[in-house]
């Protein structure tokens, strides 16, 4: 299962897009990602790229 990115990793991704969040912002984002990333991994398994329903 993908680990939630660290604040430093998130900051780097954000800054590459011209966005400069605070530490508090990144902690709030990590709380979302902790729930979302495992759910998105499960979704990827449920509907893989070759899914016949696509």
């Amino acid at each position, binding site marked *: 299962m993908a680990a939630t990115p660290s604040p430093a990793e998130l900051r780097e991704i954000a800054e590459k897009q011209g*966005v400069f969040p605070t530490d508090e912002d990144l902690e709030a984002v990590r709380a979302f*990602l902790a*729930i979302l990333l495992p759910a*998105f991994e*499960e*979704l990827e398994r449920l*509907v893989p790229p070759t899914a016949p329903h*696509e």
Partner: protein
Amino acid sequence: MSLARLAGALGAGDLSPREAVEHYLRRIEAIDGELNAYITVRADEALAEADALERAHVRGPLWGVPVALKDVIDVAGTPTTAGSRILADYVPKQDAHVVVRLRQAGAIVVGKLNLHEFAYGALTTSPHFGPAHNPWAPERICGGSSGGNGAAIAADLVAGSVGTDTAGSIRIPSSHCGVTGLRPSTGLVSNRGVVAVSPSFDAVGPIARTAMDCALLLAALAGHDPGDPTSVDAPVLPYGELLGEGIRGLRVGMVTSLVDAADPQVAGSIETALGELRSLGAELVPVTVPLLEHAGTIQQAMQFQEAADAHMEWLRTRLSDYGADVRARLLVGLFLPPHVYESGRRGRARACEELRVIFERVDLLAAPTMPVLPPRIGTETVEIGGRETLYRLALIPYNSPWSLAGLPVASVPCGFVEGLPVGLALVGPRLGEPTVLRAAHAFQQATDWHERRPALATPDAGRAAPP
């Protein structure tokens, strides 16, 4: 008074458009200080428009009817704040497509309604404009994001309203405020001139007192708009004229997993309502929706990135001007790899197909609009069956499945628990608005939940009701 009755009274000459507008302006002045339903009241403009209507030769079906709009819908010359600091001073030069249509029908826009900042949340507790208070219990939320609509209709501060719904934003406040709302099929109503959340799912629709009111508003709102890439070229129907056939023989699929997972008292109201549908002649059948538990994930896989894209320039230049919750939600979209969006698209395609198959067996689906009662303002968690959960997570399985597939959903008041309203969701197939509204209307002909009003909405608040 319902919008339908008011429109009838106006048409019969029992009162004038100016008198109708003055009536609601008095009520707003008397009551809205407690509710904060409105962000902007267009008193002078609405009165001038009422006078102009009286001089007009053509009278549309909503001639002289005062309506209010969620403050993401552009009205030329009136601020569209989106409940935000970022757009606090934005004054559009053009009406949204739906406002053009409302004006053609003869409606008068009396004001713009409070909402969750940028329509991206379900609380309507804007840090910039303050929370909207639930007319049934002012210490509680109205739901959202169209929370001001719910409050304004419940407290009779306007005859009808227009909101938006990406993942429940019409249905949630309708349920929590004891009013009737309709999320139309995605694309049936134009989104042009409306602040976007997530274009794949955004839908504009009515919130009013009754299914008939919603039908009359939808007939004015719906219609193909070549200027909106999400608009579908579907026939515009006289929805208000299609409600009278009753529901005998209608096959209604009960989404039992959603009933079972709701707060037991809410589930009790839903089961009573389903019994009422049965007594009206509907055939109830239990239904399992296969991807139900994943629907929220599928929608979020697309929605987070679409919302971030829509806000990218402000994320770069005005980040600190967002409220903390909306800022975090928007930032999430920056960190999701592109394959997440693609799995969302594949998941949506499969969910749409599975629901299409279900609608070969049933005419409608029925479920609780919300699994819980409106929580107190400032509370982030709710308790369901003794288990505490985040409110924002609890609502997702009840709302995302239908948004995901672009289906029409009505929420109708169907009971009260501890003095707070409960809503029944009636879901139709794509472009199945006539059946959804017919069932909602039949239910309201047999029940009076939609007629109950909170104490502060008594007719004499703001002086007399219209003659």
